[in-house]
């Protein structure tokens, strides 16, 4: 305490003075604790970083092994472009269409763009996952956390109507978009998605949509 201990001069004479209880000066302790708190506040990270798991398909090294075929009607191709732009087209480009590939449609990141588009195609599974989550939340089913995850995985495995999303990235896309689109898959609950390389024809389609390419020539193909 910021207080000067008074000297008892004993001038009062005669009367017995009751001694006050000894004071401990707490000020240095407060100073020290203040320093410690400031130090902890500056060095501490309150939220621990989170991880998002992603499995990429194994690289095919054997040239005789064909990549797995996927039904064209369920395929949605998403191509990440530069400047946070995102393009998509359904199905695939057939070899006979290489001269005149289908146009890319542009959408946006966020709830009204790509998410809406995916939810509309994935509505059966999305509803099933949503109802399951509701039952967990309202307590009608009580399961440990791991079982919830495996139940959702099971719902996803049994689904055979949802889209198969192929994610591709144009060369000037950025990492943030890549994570965002993978996150979108988790939000919407897409059962089957994968990250694949951009083919040359798709590269051309993006460049045409961006207005950089002039003509599609067969010589650029490989």
């Amino acid at each position, binding site marked *: 305490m910021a207080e000067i201990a008074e000297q008892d001069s004993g001038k009062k004479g005669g009367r017995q003075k009751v001694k006050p209880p000894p004071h401990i000066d707490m000020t240095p302790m407060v100073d020290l604790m203040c320093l410690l708190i400031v130090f902890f506040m500056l060095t501490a*990270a309150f939220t621990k970083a989170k991880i*998002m798991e992603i499995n990429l398909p194994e690289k095919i090294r054997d040239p005789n092994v064909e990549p797995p075929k996927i039904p064209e009607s369920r395929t949605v191709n998403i191509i990440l472009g530069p400047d946070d732009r995102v393009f998509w087209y359904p199905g695939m480009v057939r070899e006979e269409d290489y001269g005149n590939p289908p146009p890319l449609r542009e959408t946006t990141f966020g709830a009204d763009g790509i998410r809406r588009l995916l939810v509309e195609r994935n509505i059966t599974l*999305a509803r099933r996952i949503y109802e399951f989550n509701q039952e967990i939340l309202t307590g009608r089913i009580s399961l440990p956390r791991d079982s919830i995850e495996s139940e959702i995985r099971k719902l996803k495995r049994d689904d055979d109507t949802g889209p198969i999303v192929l994610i591709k990235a144009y060369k000037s896309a950025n990492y943030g978009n890549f994570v965002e689109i993978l996150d979108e898959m988790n939000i919407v609950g897409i059962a089957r998605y994968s990250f694949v390389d951009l083919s040359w024809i798709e590269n051309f389609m993006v460049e045409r949509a961006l207005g950089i390419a002039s003509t599609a020539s067969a010589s650029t193909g490989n």
Partner: protein
Amino acid sequence: MPKIKITTKPPYVDMTPMVDLFAVILIFLMLTTTFRISEPGVVNAPYSISERPVLDFNIMTVVISDDGRVFFNVDNGPDTILKFRQKVLAEMGGHYGIEFTQEELTKFGNFPASIGVPIERMKDFLSADDPGEKAALQTGVPVDSVDNQLAMWVLYARQVNPAVNAGIKGDSGVEFPIVKRVLDVLQDRNVNKFNLITSLRSADVKLDEIPE
């Protein structure tokens, strides 16, 4: 006339409750937080809805900073006595023909952040005392096909600790070809499962707006 003398005591503030409060705040901070790991480069992690916390051990992290430098980090394993980091560096030295002393290995083992030093400069890096000098040597791990040191780091980290998981922590603005390069390096080593390190955000799905 005798004056009545009022003895004025100096004002006295009781600091005890303040000390109590500070102690509570201090204990709270110590228990709820972890130390912030300072990355050698600027890394603004992207956001995702994933709620799974990052692993405490058995994780090797490839960090890609906003200027495209690649850093590598691997933990010491579930028990510090295992000294995985030291073993990984010793293996790296063996591959590139550099002999590291025990002192250098210990320094590397205790270094708290990711390392982005080409292996040829590693001795200079470990002997440097000045943080500025250390930072100047962090030019990034070479990942090009001529000198693919990241692949070797990944290889030895997995040899030393077979249970290690791969993590990628990238700045959201980093150009995709660099990320693709890192993914390719990992996939060439048969690592197909990645943990992308992100920050938490929330998202709503407007299921009700979509007709049945």
